[in-house]
């Protein structure tokens, strides 16, 4: 077993061990242990970058993992424990590990006994990282399902006043998505006789009918998760009611399971299906952008506004995937990462504001610039990054998605691109409105205490602020390693 394989297994084993150990330890020790496990996971995931050269063994395969581990789990179910990392999954794995660590660290600074929350974060991390690493369709599904209940418990136990209903809606909606994924997986497996994603990528072994049917199930499943308008209605409730760390994980990485799945499996395994449904997918994505922006313009609650903004941002990501071209998929990848970093930060900030003022109503907030200048500054930065200012991370995904749509050349796609660009302008509109309401204007009646930033908050947020800048200035950090795999995928769709 090579060092790379050991590290690959550690990225799953360390958080899993942490999730088991944390509930058994006393609270303070448990939270430190959990944070340590999350830190080790991040270290392991970063180390995966090393030694990625050893991939020339399978020159013909369109998916060329840097490191991979393969073993039989349940051959009777076509289930192999086959995991691997490549340029498409690597940034998402690191993002997941980073956000989990920041959330665990953030909980260290909280007074109450929240060790179970730490355990759930680690359990969810196992599922999310496992989904990104899985190179077997059935294994992908298994990890996809692992995420469900920890996330449900996070919302249902530590959420806001409407948590029960929100958690139930979340779990039933997402389960609907994942059972459709299960059906789709076995539509493909029954036809191809294998569940190996490496072998299936390119769609060569599947007939057109199977690909269309399979993609229909995949698209429905991932559209619930991503979410794609009109299947997004679970998202605002879940994000609004979830505790701060839950919202960060939900928005930061959970939604990416949907878009990643659509790229890796939808476009990868059933490319003809993806090409066939491109127009529908693109239209819905653009509808999501416009509807998300319009709804945001009318929102009166801080967390709900940020939640709805995710619908719009994921719309850009889905538009990029729908184009099926290399540029579009690149846009989706960087859009994924940028949204994870920026919206993660926004939810941290929204949580901090709600903690300090006891309200998230835009009408009750105001003048944060004067009462809590540090907080207002970071909020301004995050909001401007989210609306897609050039030079910050949010810019690339949106611009490339629009460009990719227009590059398709047909009048329909040009219209989609133009409408998406208008949606981007609306996005700017609602974020500026948010800033005007919250940071500018006369100070509101509600007290802001404490006005300054706690050290733990700075530590938790600084990496996100830094990444927003770095990715904005050097998008090649994310895109460079994904270039080869994305080209291979785009060939399959014929884009």
């Amino acid at each position, binding site marked *: 077993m090579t060092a790379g394989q050991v590290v690959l297994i550690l990225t799953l084993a360390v958080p899993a061990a942490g999730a088991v150990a944390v509930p058994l330890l006393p609270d303070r020790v448990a939270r430190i242990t959990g944070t340590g496990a999350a830190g080790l996971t991040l270290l392991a995931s970063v180390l995966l970058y090393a030694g990625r050269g050893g991939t020339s063994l399978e020159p013909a395969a369109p998916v060329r993992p840097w490191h991979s581990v393969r073993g*039989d*789990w*349940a*051959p*009777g*179910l*076509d*289930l192999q424990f086959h995991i691997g990392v490549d340029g498409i999954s690597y940034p998402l794995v690191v993002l997941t590990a980073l956000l989990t660590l920041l959330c665990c660290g953030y909980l260290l600074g909280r007074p109450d006994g929240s060790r179970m929350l730490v355990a759930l974060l680690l359990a969810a991390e196992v*599922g999310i990282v496992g989904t990104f690493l899985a190179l077997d369709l*059935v294994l992908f*599904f*298994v990890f996809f*399902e*692992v995420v*469900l*209940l920890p996330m*449900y418990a996070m919302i*249902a*136990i530590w959420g806001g006043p409407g948590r029960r209903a929100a958690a*139930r809606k979340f*779990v*039933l909606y997402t*389960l*609907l998505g994942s*059972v*459709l994924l*299960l*059906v789709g997986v*076995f*539509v493909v*497996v*029954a036809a191809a006789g294998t569940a190996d994603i490496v072998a299936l990528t390119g769609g060569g072994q599947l007939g057109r009918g199977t690909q269309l*049917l399979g993609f229909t199930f995949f698209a429905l499943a991932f559209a619930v998760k991503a979410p794609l308008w009109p299947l997004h209605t679970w998202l605002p409730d879940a994000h609004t009611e979830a505790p701060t760390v839950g919202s960060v994980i939900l928005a930061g990485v959970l939604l990416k399971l949907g878009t990643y799945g659509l790229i890796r499996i939808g476009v990868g395994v059933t490319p003809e299906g993806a090409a066939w449904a491109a127009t529908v997918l693109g239209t819905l994505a653009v509808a999501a952008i416009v509807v998300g922006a319009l709804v945001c313009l009318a929102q009166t609650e801080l967390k709900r506004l940020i939640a709805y903004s995710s619908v719009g941002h994921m719309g850009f990501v889905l538009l990029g995937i729908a184009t099926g071209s290399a540029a579009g998929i690149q846009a989706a990848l960087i859009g994924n990462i940028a949204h994870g970093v920026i919206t993660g930060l926004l939810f941290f900030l929204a949580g901090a504001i709600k903690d300090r003022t006891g309200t998230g109503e835009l009408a009750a907030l105001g003048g944060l610039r004067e009462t809590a200048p540090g907080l207002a500054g970071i909020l301004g930065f995050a909001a401007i990054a989210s609306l897609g200012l050039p030079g910050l991370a949010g810019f690339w995904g949106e611009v490339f998605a629009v460009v990719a749509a227009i590059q398709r050349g047909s009048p329909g796609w040009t219209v989609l691109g133009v409408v998406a660009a208008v949606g981007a302008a609306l996005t700017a509109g609602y974020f500026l409105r948010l800033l005007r309401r919250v940071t500018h204007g006369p100070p509101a009646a509600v007290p802001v205490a404490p006005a300054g930033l706690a050290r733990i908050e700075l530590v938790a947020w600084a990496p996100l602020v830094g990444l927003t800048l770095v990715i904005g200035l050097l998008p090649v950090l994310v895109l460079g390693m994904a270039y080869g795999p994305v080209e291979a995928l785009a060939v399959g769709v014929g884009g």
Partner: protein
Amino acid sequence: MTQAIDHVALLPAYLAAGTALLALLTDLAVARRAATLAVTAAGAATVAVAAWAVGTGPVRDTFCLADAPAACSFRADPTSALVATLFALLTLGVLGLSGYAVRGLPAGEYCFLLAASMTGGVVLGYSRDLITLVVALETLTLPLYALVGLRRRSVDSAQGAVTFFVVSVVSVAVTLLGAALLYAATGAVHLRALAAALADGVPGELTTLASAGAVLVLAGLVFKVAAVPFHAWAPATYDGAPLPIAAYLSTTSKLGGVVAVVYVVAIGLQPWLDVVGPALAGFAVLTMTVGNLVALRQRRMVRLLAWSSVAQAGYILAPLGAFAVGTGRTSDALALAVTATIAYAVFYVMIELAAFGSVVVLRGGAVMPAVSLASLDRSDVDGGEIEQYRGVARRSPWVAAAFTLALVGLAGLPPGLAGLFAKIVVVRSLLGGGAGWLAVIVALNAVIGLAYYLPVAVRLYGDRAAAEPAAVPAERVAGPGLRPGWGAPLWSGLALAATTVVAIVVGFAPQLVLDAAALVAG
């Protein structure tokens, strides 16, 4: 003419019957509850070992027809061994759970009846003709009429027993009528001979007769599985029965029905799957949908589990029905369907036993608020209202964790990996068998299922303060004599722990169950 009887093949059945007698004798001679239970448990364990040992040897046929040596009533092969071992182990598990609940019940009779029922299950595994099959199934069921009615002070118990008795007797009559019609049409009761006769073709004027026979046999058998529309007895009977017997009904008794259906469909009626297949698919769809929808509205714990087990029966039957209506009917496809059915059933009985075991331990060990001191008669403890389980995780975190794992497993989600793989097995076999529409229905039903399993699990961790005001004062709940340790439901706890550990192990190694199930498919 004398017939050579292979007594080695019959060994597990002898041992099972002997266990029943020994239980009765021990109760007469020693008259100690613990001794009776221990002897019965040891007997059940011996049966499991013997069945396994005989199964690993050569295939043994006995009670064969003199003129047709292939047509045998009794066959000891790996399939039979697996089924017999399962019955013995499940009985062992239920006996473990009984340790606590039988306090108010006559131990000798209880153990005797349970062992007698196990004997029926063991013989069922070996039976290969319609008559032996029905007799074995009735031996499995008959003692249960009495066991369901053992809660002497409960009207529900008596009602449950009578409902069960009437419905069951009718179902046997229906099965026998079907068997008679098949015999009239083909002249065969042995499953293999029946298959051969059906494959050769039934004379035109007898086709209707044989079809009616096939459908009647199946209809009678799905009574035992509690499949819709023959399910109405199950909730009332489960709720009236003593808790361990409810566990036995929903696992062993149901497994008996499944095994009988599989034997009849996969061996006897195999050439006629286009007749029985659509019927089975229809049963499956109705069963899972009705079971899940009605379970949504249940307020009592055992009734919820009963309706959920009705729904689960639908998933169990689905692969067989799907195979039959699917297109390519090769023997490979049949093996896939049978493997899926048996594998799902095995996963299911493990998780279901863990779920009922948790209820037994929670209701018996940590006393619920609704059970006041005065009415602490063990035999009268039933499953209670779901609301009464609110907050039990504070007092019994481990039992609550086991219960949660079982509920989540029944819903088919991680961390209940056994349930997740069970779901995968069924969907895989349905799509492999070309019945995608059925797979979608199963998938949608899984979502409905979660909608009632999850609230129960959440309630375990809920806040007691939010419970109804009628709750018993705190000192009574946590008073000195009433802590979880009181009365030491040690054996129940151990049985629950063992079941949970087994469920977790097969959750990580599902191939064990799949390999075993593949034996049945042959």
